[in-house]
């Protein structure tokens, strides 16, 4: 292995000659003996010792020191293993570097830049000029440009500003540029730093044929594309098939950058594509600003959401909810079917729906409303509501005095194809460009047999969203103060037309629901200005003033380019997202590299520097020498003392420790952040318990239900996280045993901020993790529960949040003296209990502030008291009666 080793400063090796002298010197100087101050010295003074000669340093100590010196000499001679072949010193002329900096190059960008620096350093040593061509169009002018010829040192400076661009490379233009340079003056050496993909085989071949070397590496060239399909379908695409299955985490972020949900996808071995369904809770979904593949800093792995992406809860007004939605003839059924996959639907009476605060109300004609109700609805629309009203016999009969119409109607309905008419059913006219529904797919088969007719007033055309072939409006809409009122001039169900069977029906309803938020003008915007643009790593930033970025047309095809980079376009209230991942074609790995080109990897070529390794060993030897000297001088006790003062909590408590005192426990979830929070929280709580009560908490232990005996702990805190893997049978049995034996587990779903939602990540984790555990029937903690008075008198049990509901066993087993073994809540208590080193709280508590934190501590103390004393305090409640009886 040493044949490839050279020294940068070989003359330093001459210092090795000094080593024998060093040996002799060290041998002559023995280590200092142990010194003792001795009071009875006068007795010792006169004792003759037989061996008067000074002891020598032991041979192994000498060897240690000389070896350390040798290593130092070797290290400073700077040995380099396998130095780079001196390519650049053998040929003449410029060095041409083509550097792929398109979207795919964001994958392991640091490795690319390191390799580039490495190569520029070699070029610098050979003293040759360098030309660099980034193959992606420049963000300044949209052209592929060449930089140089310049000095390598200058190029290194220039390379610091190089960044991946969120659009594809243009190999054809780059090839043309290379061709131009070839014609002028042939460069001595050309190398391509490839991103590993080929958008077009022909273009890339032109570029490749001029190259002496191609740097490509499947480890570095590992782009990830996140595509959003229909509804909740997402696909992850990669360049190379994986050899082993790999778990990929996709996280959903709010605009503030907080993770609100995440999902794990197992990327199977041998596949380049993986599609998955991810149903996000509607309340959460509304908050999401971006989805991205965790650990991948690439624009292509980010999916931005737009304002229209947000789901709006929709209410369907119905007098008889149960019957309406199951009846194929009722309008509510079709409305529900159209909207249900995307949106949250509620069906109920107007009063119920008002309570639920829906964004959109749909009013099929079958639900008859009283006049006060209509007035109330009108008021709701004025306040910013969006009402979609369908026609039918009711409206046709009572259209005269109706306050909820966008356009005045003629009384009665117009019927075609009736027994008394000879008119044919009418088809739909093409959608007008001014209509908010413009751009939806046409529906040529739709026919309308009955409709309510609008009075042909002057403003009618502007309010018409959809027309029949004869020009009569089918859908009209109008703004009412802050809100919007839309009238469909036929029924929601099939009785007046087959509109409800068409794709347009679904698309139009969805478009209308989308419109329900913040759109000020029906007129579809023709172009959208850039609002925030993505860089190559997927970070959003406001656009530069002098950038060449154009306005972009909505609903058009999107091609990422310097003129239209991916990002958000529109206004802050209403923007559309244009995502790189959705716009990219499937990627192909770079093939047909010409045989004349050598293939390099992104690994370091500059030789393996042994200096640091040698220095490290030399220092280690010196450390060993110090230790040995300490030992010889009897100062080991000093070392032991030093080791003893290092924190003792590093060691896990032994079972003997555990039985000697009170320890709080939490379940280790495998998510380091959550575990850390649990530990900190319980430590904070333990401090308060020790301070305020007779219970002395000795420590906090993280337990693994798979391995650890849980019997030592009076109570266990179990935060729910999707990161925790499923419990195996042994772990489940262990926990079951703990519950059966009367232990107390506090399950914390940590989702109190969603207040009452039914499918949060925490609840999902809870369901998943407790699948094999027999949890008894639950009920909310009652007013007289022991938990409300075991130490403090409490009414509620807040943590970081105050969602209010804490669940306990409905009928606790008499075997446990009627004390619950399970408590389930979602208020993230650990976060409220956490203190930093200065005893200050570390996480804000909402909404109650410090008073709520105090309550959180009190809850924790009550909880421990229940765990320790059971129903003792419940008995105490009878004290007055007992005393009374004793008195008599």
């Amino acid at each position, binding site marked *: 292995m040493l044949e490839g080793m050279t020294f940068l400063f070989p003359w330093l090796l001459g210092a090795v000659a000094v080593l024998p002298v060093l040996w002799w010197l060290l041998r002559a100087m023995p280590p200092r003996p142990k010194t003792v101050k001795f009071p009875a*010295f006068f007795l010792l003074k006169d004792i003759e*010792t037989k061996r008067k000669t000074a002891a020598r340093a032991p041979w192994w100590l000498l060897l240690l020191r000389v070896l350390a010196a040798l290593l130092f000499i070797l290290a400073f001679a700077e040995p380099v293993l396998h130095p780079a072949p001196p390519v650049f010193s053998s040929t003449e002329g410029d060095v041409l570097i083509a550097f792929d900096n398109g979207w795919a190059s964001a994958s392991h960008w640091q490795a690319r830049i390191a390799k580039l620096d490495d190569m520029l350093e070699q070029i610098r040593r050979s003293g040759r000029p360098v030309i660099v061509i980034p193959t992606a169009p420049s963000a300044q002018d949209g052209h592929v440009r060449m930089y140089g010829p310049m000095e390598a040192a200058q190029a290194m400076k220039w390379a610091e500003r190089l960044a991946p661009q969120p659009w594809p490379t243009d190999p054809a233009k780059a090839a043309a540029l290379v061709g131009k340079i070839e014609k002028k003056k042939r460069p001595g050496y050309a190398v391509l730093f490839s991103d590993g993909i080929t958008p077009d085989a022909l273009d890339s071949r032109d570029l490749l044929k001029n190259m002496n070397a191609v740097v490509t590496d499947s480890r570095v060239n590992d782009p990830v594309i996140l595509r959003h399909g229909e509804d909740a379908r997402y696909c992850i695409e990669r360049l190379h098939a994986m050899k082993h299955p790999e778990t990929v985490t996709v996280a959903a972020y709010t605009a503030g950058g907080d993770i609100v949900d995440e999902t794990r996808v197992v990327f199977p071995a041998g596949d380049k594509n993986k599609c998955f369904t991810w149903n996000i809770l509607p309340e959460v979904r509304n908050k999401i600003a971006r989805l991205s593949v965790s650990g991948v800093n690439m624009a292509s792995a980010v999916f931005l959401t737009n304002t229209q992406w947000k789901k709006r809860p929709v209410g369907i007004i119905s007098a008889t909810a149960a019957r309406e939605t199951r009846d194929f003839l009722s309008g509510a059924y079709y409305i529900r079917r159209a909207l249900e996959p995307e949106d949250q639907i509620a069906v109920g009476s107007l009063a119920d729906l008002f309570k639920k605060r829906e964004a959109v109300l749909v009013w099929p004609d079958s639900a008859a409303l009283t006049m006060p109700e209509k007035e109330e609805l009108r008021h709701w629309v004025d306040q910013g509501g969006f009402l979609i009203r369908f026609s039918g016999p009711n409206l046709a009969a009572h259209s005269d005095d109706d306050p909820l119409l966008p356009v005045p109607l003629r009384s009665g309905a117009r019927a075609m194809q009736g027994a008394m008419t000879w008119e044919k059913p009418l088809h739909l006219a093409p959608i007008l460009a001014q209509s908010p529904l413009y751009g939806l797919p046409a529906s040529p088969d739709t026919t309308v047999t009955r409709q309510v007719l609008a009075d042909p007033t002057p403003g009618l055309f502007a309010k018409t969203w959809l027309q029949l072939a004869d020009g009569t409006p089918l859908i009209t809409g109008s703004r009412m103060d802050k809100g919007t009122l839309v009238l469909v001039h036929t029924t929601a169900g099939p009785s007046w037309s087959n509109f409800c069977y068409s794709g347009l029906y679904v698309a139009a309803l969805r478009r209308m629901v989308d419109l329900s938020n913040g759109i000020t003008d029906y007129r579809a915007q023709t172009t959208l200005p850039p609002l925030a643009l993505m860089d190559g790593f997927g970070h959003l930033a406001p656009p530069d003033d002098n950038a060449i970025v154009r306005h972009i047309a909505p609903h058009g095809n999107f091609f990422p380019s310097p003129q239209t980079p991916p990002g958000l376009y529109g206004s802050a209230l209403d923007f559309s997202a244009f995502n790189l991942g959705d716009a990219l074609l499937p990627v192909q790995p770079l093939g047909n590299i010409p045989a004349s080109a050598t293939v390099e990897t992104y690994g370091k070529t500059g030789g393996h520097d042994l200096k640091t390794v040698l220095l490290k060993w030399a220092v280690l030897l010196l450390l060993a020498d110090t230790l040995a000297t300490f030992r010889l001088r009897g100062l080991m006790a000093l070392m032991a003392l030093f080791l003893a003062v290092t924190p003792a909590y590093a060691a896990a408590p032994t079972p003997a420790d555990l039985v000697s005192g009170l320890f709080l426990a939490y379940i280790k979830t495998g998510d380091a952040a959550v575990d850390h929070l649990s530990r900190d929280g319980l430590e904070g709580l333990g401090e308060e318990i020790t301070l305020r009560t007779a219970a002395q908490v000795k420590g906090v232990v993280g337990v693994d239900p798979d391995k650890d005996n849980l019997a030592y702990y009076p109570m266990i805190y179990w935060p729910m996280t999707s990161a925790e893997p499923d419990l195996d049978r042994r772990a489940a049995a262990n926990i079951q045993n703990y519950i059966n034996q009367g232990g107390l587990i506090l399950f914390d779903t940590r989702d109190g901020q969603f207040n009452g939602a039914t499918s949060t990540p925490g609840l999902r984790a809870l369901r998943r993790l407790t699948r094999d555990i027999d949890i008894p029937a639950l009920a909310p903690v009652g007013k007289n529960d022991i938990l409300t008075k075991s130490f403090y008198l409490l009414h509620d049990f807040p943590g970081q949040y105050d969602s209010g509901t804490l669940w306990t066993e409905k009928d606790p087993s008499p075997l446990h003296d009627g004390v619950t073994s399970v408590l389930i809540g979602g208020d993230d208590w650990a976060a409220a209990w956490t203190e930093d080193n200065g005893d200050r709280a570390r996480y804000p508590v909402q909404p109650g502030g410090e008073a709520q934190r105090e309550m959180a501590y009190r809850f924790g103390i009550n909880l421990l008291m229940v765990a320790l004393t059971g129903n003792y305090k419940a008995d105490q409640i009878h004290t007055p009666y007992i005393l009374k009886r004793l008195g008599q």
Partner: protein
Amino acid sequence: MSKDTDRLARAGKIAGNLDLLLRAERVAHAVMKGVHGRRRTGTGETFWQFRPWAPGDARRDIDWRQTAKRGGFDSAVEHGGVFIREMEWEAAQTAWLWRDASASMDFGIKKEYAETLLLALGIVLLNGGEQTGLLGSGLAPQTGVAAVERIFAALPAQKEMTEGARPVAAFSHVILIGDFYAPLEDVRDFCARLAARHVTGTLVQVFDPAEKDLPYKGRVRFEDIEGIDAADIAQVEAIRDVYARKFAAHQAALDEMARRSGWRFESFSTAVKPETALAQLCGVLGTHA
């Protein structure tokens, strides 16, 4: 700030010292449980025993009550079963305490041990009604159990082995606690001077186990306590036996010296529990007094 830390340091020191006093009290009480007065008839106030009357006893010494209970003139007992009440012998003696405060005591727990022993001894003596003083401190001999705190307070003032401002009266008892590593002559002179005045005394040597056993190994450099002189011993194991003999010889010399003045010599390793040491000392003092 600095004032506060000063005060804190002082408080800590006082607490540490009080700790010493408490320990001494504990030691003393452990021993006092087993000591019951002088076990000798005398003119004290404590009841000692009843005994049958014998010719020569004063009439006022007869305990009539006891006689009525146990004896009786009709009994066949000699002298008519009359009982005499005897009180315990009590004679206040003056005891002077001294402990070595020199640097050589700062080895292991020697100094602390010596002070504990001194204070415990003080408590026992005061409890027994003796006048107890602190040699060379300027403190007059004290009586009453509470005086131990005054002795404790005066302890830092006591340094050299001298009589100081208050000379030792004749027929007092002097208890010297230290390691006696000083030249033998100094101790001898002091003892002889006192012995000439009919002062009795006890030398109590306190030593660290290491000073006796020399438990070091290999090459060790020994320095005297002032750090002036040093000896480099290449192989401590080799001289261990020689040293042990020299140590024993030194102790024997001290014992011999004490005996010659009519004094006693006792020696305790700090490994011995102070309670044990105190009990032994009390035994010695009891026979002496």
